[in-house]
């Protein structure tokens, strides 16, 4: 009896308030999906960052015959003695965690693989034209970069020193900006959703003031009087959440996954990440609707 009655009351409430409820559902759906998108972005950026931070931070390219830099033109290609000396220097530096040497053969293979869809370029490039390099992993990339870089710049046989982080920084800044914009818009919309929930419940309480006054009179418990309103808000929130979950799946499979295709490395988000974000947005949605309804009821439904 109880549950059937309560659901009947909720149904009446939702139907009477149809336009308001629909507005609520749409706003909740959009705000939650934006929030979720923001969270997916955060995860994606984190994932990419950890991927890169686990990799090399400093690349030291060595001179080859075809290097255009003046110091290479002057001194000729790096000799084995140069390499040994450089390696010694790097290993002896306390800021350096690890040094990997990439031979010209390896570099050439990588190059061919990387530009495999441009055979003309590969054809024109001979082995030996792609420089060999020392890939250096630093203990503390931000602080130690300059020290190590200045120590090796200009050393015999060194062509260029490249900070991998500066290249990635631009990319990060782009992603961070997009993420921040999405999260800020999501937060504004969540505020709108809160106000809308409050208004919907207020309207609903006004629409049903006769019923509630009689319920109070015949001694219905506070819980029983408030339950239909709370559930009304919660159901609208859940429908909104379900829509946002659909949108998030779309965002992931259409946007983020296609973004991923531009990278040769695997930093894609798993289904688990998506589920985590969707569950989180459900909790936000239910709390948002539930708490707001509860607080509104306390004001407008004096028992």
């Amino acid at each position, binding site marked *: 009896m109880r549950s059937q009655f309560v659901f009947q009351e909720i149904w009446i409430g939702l139907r009477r308030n149809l336009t308001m409820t629909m507005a609520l559902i749409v706003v909740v759906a959009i705000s939650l999906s934006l929030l979720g998108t923001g969270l997916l972005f955060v995860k994606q950026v984190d994932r990419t960052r950890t991927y890169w931070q686990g990799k090399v931070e400093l690349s030291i390219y060595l001179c080859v015959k075809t290097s255009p830099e003046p110091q290479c033109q002057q001194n000729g290609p790096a000799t084995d003695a140069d390499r040994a000396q450089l390696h010694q220097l790097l290993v002896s530096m306390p800021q350096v965690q690890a040094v990997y040497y990439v031979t010209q053969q390896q570099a050439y293979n990588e190059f061919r693989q990387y530009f495999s869809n441009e055979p003309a370029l590969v054809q024109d490039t001979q082995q030996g034209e792609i420089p060999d390099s020392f890939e250096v992993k630093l203990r503390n990339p931000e602080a130690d970069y300059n020290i190590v870089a200045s120590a090796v710049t200009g050393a015999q046989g060194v062509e260029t020193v490249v900070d991998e982080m500066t290249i990635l920084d631009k990319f990060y800044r782009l992603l961070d900006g997009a993420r921040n914009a999405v999260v800020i818009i999501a937060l504004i919309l969540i505020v709108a959703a809160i106000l809308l929930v409050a208004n919907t419940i207020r309207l609903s309480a006004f629409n049903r003031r006769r019923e509630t006054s009689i319920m*109070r*009179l*015949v001694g*219905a418990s*506070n819980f029983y*009087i408030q339950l239909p309103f709370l559930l009304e808000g919660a159901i609208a929130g859940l429908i909104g959440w379900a829509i946002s979950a659909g949108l998030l799946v779309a965002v992931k499979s259409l946007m983020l996954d296609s973004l991923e295709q531009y990278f040769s490395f695997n930093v894609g988000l798993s289904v688990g990440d998506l589920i985590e974000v969707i569950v989180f947005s459900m909790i936000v949605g239910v709390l948002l609707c539930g708490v707001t309804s509860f607080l509104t009821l306390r004001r407008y439904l004096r028992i």
Partner: protein
Amino acid sequence: MINFDNVTKAYPNQSRPALENVNISVAKGEFVFLVGPSGSGKSTFLRLVLKEERPSEGRIHVAGRDLARLTNWKVPYLRRRIGCVFQDFRLLPNKNVYQNVAFALEVIGKNRRFIRKVVPEVIDLVGLEGKHERMPDELSGGEQQRVAMARAFVNRPMILLADEPTGNIDPATSIGIMKVLDRINRTGTTVVMATHDAAIVDSMRKRVIELEYGKVVRDQSRGVYGQAY
């Protein structure tokens, strides 16, 4: 059943208290008329019994409970023992007679079998047999008030409060309403009725409590409406 011990109720921003040093005791099964001009404190009295208001001073006991010690979440349980009828009926316009009466039981969580058994009995008691399906706007004022009485009585309260139940009803129909109230009273329910209707008070010959400017000016068993004192 209802005990007012030196009760004063003052509303903020009003110079004169709505009730002042009121001592009233109503025993179980009594039928009491509460009379007096508008603004004399009758409605305040009823609201205090329901704990819709708190007294400024004094103690109130209803159905054996000290209202000052009754926590907020227990108030609904007090109200389940008190039925209420108003001048304006307060029926739900989108529910029929049966649903209006059943509503009072549904919202306190009674099971369906109990409701199906009890509601028709009460509708018969107030004399509306065969009108279960009527909507409130298809009923006369007297019939609507009977529905309201059925709703107030369906949970078998110990006390029935009636705030000018005949205020919107013509004298001939009022007699029928009073008969229903009398029938309810005979089941052992305490009835307190606030009214302006002199003819009814005179004809019933029940206890009369008269209020004026918030004070009890007369408390008389088997009284009439306008007796000089």
